[in-house]
């Protein structure tokens, strides 16, 4: 009796101290997240219903949202951003998948060397590699002179001056930087797949492309979905590369202006309009939220 009493009282005291300890361990992080993440995101939402220049903000109802529809630069930034992820993400994912499948082939020599090399771009800082690409893709630069020497083009491509090719350059640059990153996820997933399945398919005479399409891709579906969504979320927030490649303008003729760059310009370049910039930022919030929801939904479906 006495024993069990002492045990319960100790248990209660233990629970109380566990609760206190739980708060002590988590409090610093929770306070910082509250102050520097939760508060600002709510503040942005409030700001998006205010308009005015600089710190002179007045309540403006839904006028910022109306302004979005009538703002050709916003529409352009939205279309550019969407174009980037719709075109770039599938190319990169397919490339990463093919490379991962190749690196996973049996009795491959130098697999480690290939893997490290293809992964290396992930180490480059976004700004540094953008500067490198700016140099390599200069009008008379290395890429143009190589293409002309091979005979693929007759005259230099205006990578930095032509609206279409500027977009292509941004897509090439992001693909270079992130393909290896995605490939690593596929390689890790492929290691968990029993190689005898491939061996059996090979003996049955299934060609390599069919093994890729009907074995590799279906088995990696969850990882493919995950990487597609994180890559899309990353591309929606594209900033560093376009800022560096285009002297912060998103040019030529706004052809590489992204939503993040537009928000930056609205806030820090022109006369600041915090309210409207916050409204544009919420367009990104909504896009990311929809994608995260899809990811969450698909992940739950799987479990």
């Amino acid at each position, binding site marked *: 009796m006495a024993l069990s009493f002492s045990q319960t009282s100790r248990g209660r005291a233990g629970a109380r101290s566990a609760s206190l300890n*739980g708060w002590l361990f988590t409090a610093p992080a929770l306070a910082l997240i509250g102050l*520097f993440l939760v508060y600002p995101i709510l*503040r942005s939402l409030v700001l998006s219903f205010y308009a005015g220049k600089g710190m002179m903000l007045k309540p403006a109802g839904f006028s910022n949202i109306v302004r979005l529809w009538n703002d050709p630069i916003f529409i352009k930034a939205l279309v550019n951003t969407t174009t980037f992820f719709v075109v770039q993400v599938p190319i990169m994912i397919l490339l990463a998948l093919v490379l991962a499948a190749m690196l996973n082939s049996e009795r491959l020599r130098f697999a480690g060397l290939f893997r490290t090399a293809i992964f290396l771009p992930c180490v480059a*800082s976004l700004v540094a590699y953008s500067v490198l690409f700016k140099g390599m893709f200069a009008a008379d630069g290395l890429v143009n002179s190589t293409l002309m020497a091979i005979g693929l083009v007759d005259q230099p491509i205006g990578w930095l001056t032509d609206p279409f090719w500027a977009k292509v350059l941004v897509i090439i640059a992001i693909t270079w930087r992130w393909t290896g990153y995605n490939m690593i996820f596929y390689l890790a997933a492929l290691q968990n797949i029993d190689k005898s399945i491939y061996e059996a398919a090979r003996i049955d005479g299934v060609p390599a492309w069919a093994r890729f399409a009907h074995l590799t891709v279906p088995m990696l579906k969850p990882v493919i979905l995950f990487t597609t969504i994180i890559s899309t979320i990353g591309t929606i927030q594209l900033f560093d590369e376009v800022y560096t490649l285009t002297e912060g303008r998103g040019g030529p003729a706004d052809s590489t202006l992204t939503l993040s760059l537009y928000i930056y310009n609205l806030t820090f370049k022109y006369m600041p309009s915090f309210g409207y*910039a916050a409204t544009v930022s919420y367009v990104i919030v909504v896009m990311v939220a929809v994608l995260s929801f899809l990811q969450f939904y698909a992940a739950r479906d799987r479990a």
Partner: protein
Amino acid sequence: MSMASTATPAGAPALPFRRILARAGLYLTLSIAAFLSVFPFIWMLISATNSSGDIIRGKVAFGDQFWINLTNFMNQVDLALVMWNSFKVAILSTVLTIAVSSLAGYGFEMFRSKMRERLYSLVLLTLMVPFAALMIPLFMMIGKAGLINTHLAILLPTIASAFIIFYFRQATKAFPTELRDAARVDGLKEWQIFLFIYVPVMRSTYAAAFVIVFMTSWNNYLWPLIVLQSNETKTITLVVSALGSAYYPDFGMVMIGTILATLPTLIVFFVMQRQFVAGMLGSVK
């Protein structure tokens, strides 16, 4: 990997022609991919030895302009100060982020309560908040606090990282609770258990977290671009961007900057390659 295939007997007859062709295609494709991935790094080293004019004319041979480029760079940039700023910010932010976030990850996993589980869901929710939606209020806050042009302005918003908290909580699930229980019986306080038992046991998790946070912090661009406007506080990333985004950049000089900006992360990658990959994959476990 180490296991030899049992399907092909040793000393098999010569491979059929089609299979040799397929092999050749495989090695060719991988070689091209590897070459394209590594080439810009090599080109960066080569270009640091060439004049700007040669660089944008596509020269791919080592030149003799390295010392001139370096001198030009040193004349424009206070190299020691810039590198000091970069390392100071990256290391402080890495140490603080890992300390605060590992405490939280451990706390959320080890001391469960309904209220904290709800807050944890909220923390995970913040993972999907795009930075663009934070920067305006953050800028206003930092401005009001008089912290523009200070390194504290960069550190504060980055210390509590939802991802690193998540990363540590996931890793803590594998921490043997018998160790904790034994320590409790020995009369250790909770903070002692964390510091003297959890941290040493989880050192590989800490190493992976170090790599992720250091890389992120070293390469951080947009937020420093907003809050660091004076030359005295700028980091190497900002300097490279400023030099490189001019209309007619002196590419030879800029290359010195890109090398300096890339070298630390390259070294971290080669020294800690396994932790690097482990850290990246942590998010899908």
